[in-house]
Each structure stands twice: as C-alpha cells, then as structure tokens.
C-alpha cells in the first residue's frame, strides 16, 4: 500500500499511527463505560446470589443450557470470524472483508434467533417475572429475582448484539459497494473491539446464568 493513497491524517495528529492510536483509546474509553454499565448488573447479581444462594442455584437449574451453550459457541465463532475480518481490512482485501463481515453478522443474527426461541420457551414455562410467573422451587420469590436479573441482563446484552449485527451488516455493504475501508481500516478495527466486548460480556453471563449448580 503506498503512503500517498493512505487516508488523510487530521491536522491535530502527527501521523496516521498516532491518529489510529487516539481512535483506539477513544473506543476503549467507551468500552470502559460499558464495563461499568454491565458491571452494575453483575454486582446486583452477585449481591443477590450471595444473599439467596439456594434459590439462585435452584432457579439456575431451570434455565435451558442447550440454548445457552450453543449460543456461547455461536458468539465465540463470530468473534473469531470478526478477527479475520479486521485482518482482511488491514490487508485491503475488500471482497474477503465484505464476506467475513456478513458471516459475522449472520452468526450474530443466529444468536438472536436462538435466544428468541429460548425466551419463547421460558415464557411458555412461566419463567417471565410478573403475575404469570410460577416455578416449582422452595423459595419462589427469590427464584423470581434470579429470573428478573436473567431477563434484564440477557435482554440488555441482546440489545447490544442487535446493534452490532446492524452495524456489521452496514459495514459489509460499505466495504462491497463503496470500498469504504481502502487504506482506512480503523473503523473496522473499532467495530471489532465493540463486537469482541459484547462477546466477553456473554462469556461471563453464561456460567453465572446456566451453571450455578448443575451437578446435583
């Protein structure tokens, strides 16, 4: 790639490398706010689980681990594909970039579809907190609290996945039809950071939701 064809450097930066580093830091600053946003919910989970360990263990056994486990694999694979997409952007492989972004977005969409079926089954089984909530457990009130936290955290996470799928799909189109990331892969790199972060949140949600007490 020739220097002359590179994306212009804004006047406040010395060079393209400094511009890229500043953009990356900005993205990590945004991710820090996201860490604390999700962190508040993880803290609420921890405090309640500490207070009502039996109710949480019992409620966790009612979650559908086949859906959760499959979805974890789907997100991990989509993150891996995204890593290759960022690499394709760096190497100016426009066609490959579009293809890998489309694959990443499709896996994200698959995650949402699986999650939708899981939600539907849980609603059918009465596990959505509210008047219709019912569970066969020794302490149904605090089992309901577990499911309240479960629905809140997974829904907020699914919202992040939805935003990711839309953005990644949009980027795929821009790569294909506009060649928008030629010698300018920083936006793809930053989108990748977002997608990997959403993956990390799920990596922690998965054992805390589905596997509190599977062995008894």
């Amino acid at each position: 790639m020739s220097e002359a064809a590179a994306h212009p450097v804004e006047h406040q930066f010395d060079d393209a490398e400094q511009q890229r580093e500043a953009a990356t830091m900005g993205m990590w600053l945004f991710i820090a706010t996201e860490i604390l946003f999700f962190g508040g919910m993880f803290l609420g989970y921890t405090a309640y689980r500490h207070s009502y360990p039996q109710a949480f263990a019992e409620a966790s056994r009612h979650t559908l681990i086949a859906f959760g486990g499959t979805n974890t694999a789907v997100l991990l694979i989509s993150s891996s594909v995204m890593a290759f997409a960022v690499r394709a952007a760096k190497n100016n492989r426009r066609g490959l970039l579009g293809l890998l972004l489309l694959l990443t977005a499709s896996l994200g969409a698959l995650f949402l579809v699986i999650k939708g079926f899981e939600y539907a089954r849980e609603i059918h089984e009465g596990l959505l907190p509210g008047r219709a909530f019912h569970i066969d457990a020794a302490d149904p009130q605090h089992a309901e609290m577990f499911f309240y936290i479960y629905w809140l955290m997974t829904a907020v996470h699914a919202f992040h996945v939805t935003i990711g799928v839309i953005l990644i799909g949009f980027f795929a189109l821009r790569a294909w039809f506009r060649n928008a990331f030629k010698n300018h892969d920083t936006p793809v790199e930053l989108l990748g950071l977002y997608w990997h972060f959403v993956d990390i949140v799920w990596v922690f949600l998965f054992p805390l939701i589905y596997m509190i007490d599977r062995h008894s």
Partner: protein
Amino acid sequence: MNSPSARAYTFTGLALLALLALTIGVAYVDLGPLNTAVAMAISLAKGALIILFFMHVRYSRPILWLFVGAGFFWLGIMFVLALSDYMTRGW
C-alpha cells in the same frame, strides 16, 4: 502496530471453544464451592484471550494497556467496596 498472524487467530478461536467445552464439563462435576471459582477462572481466561489477541492489546503500546486497565480497575473498586458490605454482614 504489529498484527497477529492468521495462525494466532485460529489458535485463539480453537482455545476459546475448548475452554467452553471444559466449562460445561466441569459444571457437572461436584467440586463444592470450587465450582463457581473454576467457572470464573475459565471465563477470565477466555476474556484474557479475547482481549490480548482478538482486541490486539498484546500488540499495543503501554498507553493503551492503561486505557484498557482503567475500566477494569474501576469495576474492581465498585465490586470491592460494595461487597465489603454485603459479604461482612452478620445478618
């Protein structure tokens, strides 16, 4: 910035899937209170792999490590201060 090789990405992806299989397998073995500790340790390992390789932090300058660490440091403050109350109550 150096970027990781395709091999590094492939190994990271496979390691993540292996850790997923491990975390599910271990969940069905009774380790007492260690079950949660092991599950969280595996999640931390997965998170570290994603951050270091997929998010390229391993290949970045120390200033970026500071930005990455700050978010987790604040998270640590929130957890330590809040749980120092919840976990020490006698009621």
